[in-house]
């Protein structure tokens, strides 16, 4: 007569408990990081607006001690330029130069030793003549050229100007060119793959596009820079070799795989009986595609458009390499532009930690973040909601 034994929770469940806690902790930490990025990028932007008391005090200190060259010092510098990795293979610094700066900076008047040492320690924060900016400064016109009010982005100068409109415009311009080139090509290629191509051809085209998706963006930028820029220069007789159009073409190479894959997937899951019904009524393949397939796949098409645009908007390396990096607002296709991502990429390495410029770059980053995030969220929203709605009837 067997009976089931009562056993109280034994040691095994202790291991279970610990393991579960461990998994929970790691997972929650990684999720916290993911959410933390949102918060953190915004928080660091505030350094652009911050008024530190030391700042004003430092300005006085500076004037008093005639520390002029310190404004070039940033957090990562040392006295020996040789050891700064950003520089070329080692250059010899002129020892005399070194002497001069140091003795200039420590030219003395009578003072309290501790104060002096502490003042030197304020090098860690901004030493520049920067005054904190106000939010409007980012958007208001801040210079006059030929009688017209213009928006200038010029962070490195005696009077830094931080208008971000040229940057937003730049990103927008190249992404728009990119998506305008890429979208028709991708959608037609997708239609071909689904509506016309025999099965074996589909198995060839799809992997090739996936290969394109796997290209590192540096390589695409490199290729456009070395090969395509010269080619376009001849073809279109442009004045500037690196311009927005070239940037758009480069971006379109990145956009095509994304848009193609999404649209192709959306077309693929449209139930066959819909197109069969259309063909049975005497429509040809073009009409079927245009009137039945595409409308049925429209959420996917919209989502693809948004996602492709979003991807191009945030692309850094290609923009850095081939857009010419001039922050101007024009409608000419063949002028240079400067995108937000490229600005961050090129200027962040040289900026001083927690200076005004640093804060403004973070603001640019936040704006970039908001825009791409909204595009993604919108795409996901449309895709989910409309797709579910569309297929509920089937």
């Amino acid at each position, binding site marked *: *007569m067997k*009976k*089931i034994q*009562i*056993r*109280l*929770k034994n040691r095994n469940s202790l291991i279970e408990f610990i393991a579960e806690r461990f998994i929970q902790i790691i997972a929650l930490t990684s999720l916290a990081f993911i959410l933390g990025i949102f918060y953190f990028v915004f928080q660091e932007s505030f350094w652009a607006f911050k008024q530190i008391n030391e700042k004003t005090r430092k300005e006085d200190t500076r004037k008093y001690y005639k520390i002029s060259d310190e404004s070039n010092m940033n957090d990562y510098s040392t006295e020996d330029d040789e050891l700064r990795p950003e520089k070329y293979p080692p250059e010899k610094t002129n020892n005399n130069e070194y002497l001069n700066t140091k003795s200039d900076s420590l030219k003395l008047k009578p003072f309290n030793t501790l104060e002096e040492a502490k003042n030197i320690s304020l090098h860690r924060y901004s030493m520049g003549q920067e005054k904190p900016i106000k939010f409007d400064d980012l958007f208001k016109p801040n210079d006059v050229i030929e009688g017209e009010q213009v928006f200038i982005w010029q962070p490195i100068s005696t009077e830094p100007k931080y208008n971000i409109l040229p940057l937003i415009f730049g990103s927008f311009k190249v992404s728009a060119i990119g998506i305008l080139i890429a979208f028709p090509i991708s959608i037609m290629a997708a239609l071909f793959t689904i509506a016309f191509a025999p099965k074996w051809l589909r198995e060839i085209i799809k992997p090739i596009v996936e290969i394109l998706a796997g290209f590192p963006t540096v390589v695409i930028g490199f290729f456009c820079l070395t090969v395509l820029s010269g080619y376009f220069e001849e073809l279109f007789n442009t004045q500037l070799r690196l311009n927005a159009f070239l940037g758009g073409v480069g971006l379109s190479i990145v956009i095509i795989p994304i848009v193609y894959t999404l649209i192709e997937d959306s077309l693929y899951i449209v139930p066959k009986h819909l197109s069969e019904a259309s063909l049975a009524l005497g429509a040809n393949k073009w009409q079927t595609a245009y009137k039945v397939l595409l409308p049925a796949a429209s959420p996917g098409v919209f989502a693809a458009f948004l996602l492709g645009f979003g991807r191009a908007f945030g692309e850094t390396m290609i923009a850095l390499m081939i857009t010419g990096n001039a922050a101007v607002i024009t409608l000419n296709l063949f002028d240079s532009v400067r995108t937000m991502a490229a600005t961050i990429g090129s200027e962040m390495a040289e900026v001083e930690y927690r200076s005004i410029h640093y804060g403004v770059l973070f603001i640019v980053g936040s704006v970039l973040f908001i825009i791409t995030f909204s595009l993604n969220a919108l795409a996901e929203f449309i895709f989910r909601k409309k797709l579910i709605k569309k297929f509920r009837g089937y």
Partner: protein
Amino acid sequence: MKEIKIRIESLSVSYGTKPAIKNISLNIARNQVTALIGPSGCGKTTFLKTINRLNDFNDKIRISGKVYIDDLDIYSKNVNITELRKKTGMIFQKSNPFPKSIFDNVAYGPRVNGVTNREELYDIVKSCLMKAALWEEVENNLYDSALKLSGGQQQRVCIARALAVNPEILLMDEPASALDPLSTARIEELIMELKKNYTIVIVTHNMQQAARVSDMTAYLYMGELIEFDKTRKIFTNPSKKQTEDYITGRYG
């Protein structure tokens, strides 16, 4: 009068607000086959899962009433669930061997419970496969993937796997529904063999199978127990009209 293995008192189970089982009281005797018949979707699988507490994974489940196995309330707080599940082996409707070798499938249970000795495992696997009447067919390819076997063989692997943890009760949810008649016959033979040592509860929508195989039969309809009696009686002379309607095919 056979001794009672599982005693169910006023069991009611609902998913959220939808009731699946309404106030069932039932006694399942030891070393006998008890069949549960009734139209699909009337709570039979839920009933089985209540006995081995597999329902616990569903958040929306509400259970009231009592289930006693060997006079032990299995829903009381100090019951070790993994022990409970070892004592109540389950065979599922669609055979679900792990994507591992036949040997590893049957040895899974013992391994998970701490048996690591290779020889011991081999003995267990061999004896269970023999009990499941599968040993001769697979003894030469024990280390091949279990997914390569036919449906009937896979189901027998699952039975061997369940036997390997030394249960006392076997809960079978339509074990032969996905199988061809030949395999079904073999499984039924197996059940008749196994009942000598195990208490078996089998859910089936195949009434002939219930008639062939079981000692006691319960007829469930929409979560309610309509009639519970010796199989012979249910199928030749049921007390309730509802039962008779179902059995003669007038309904369901």
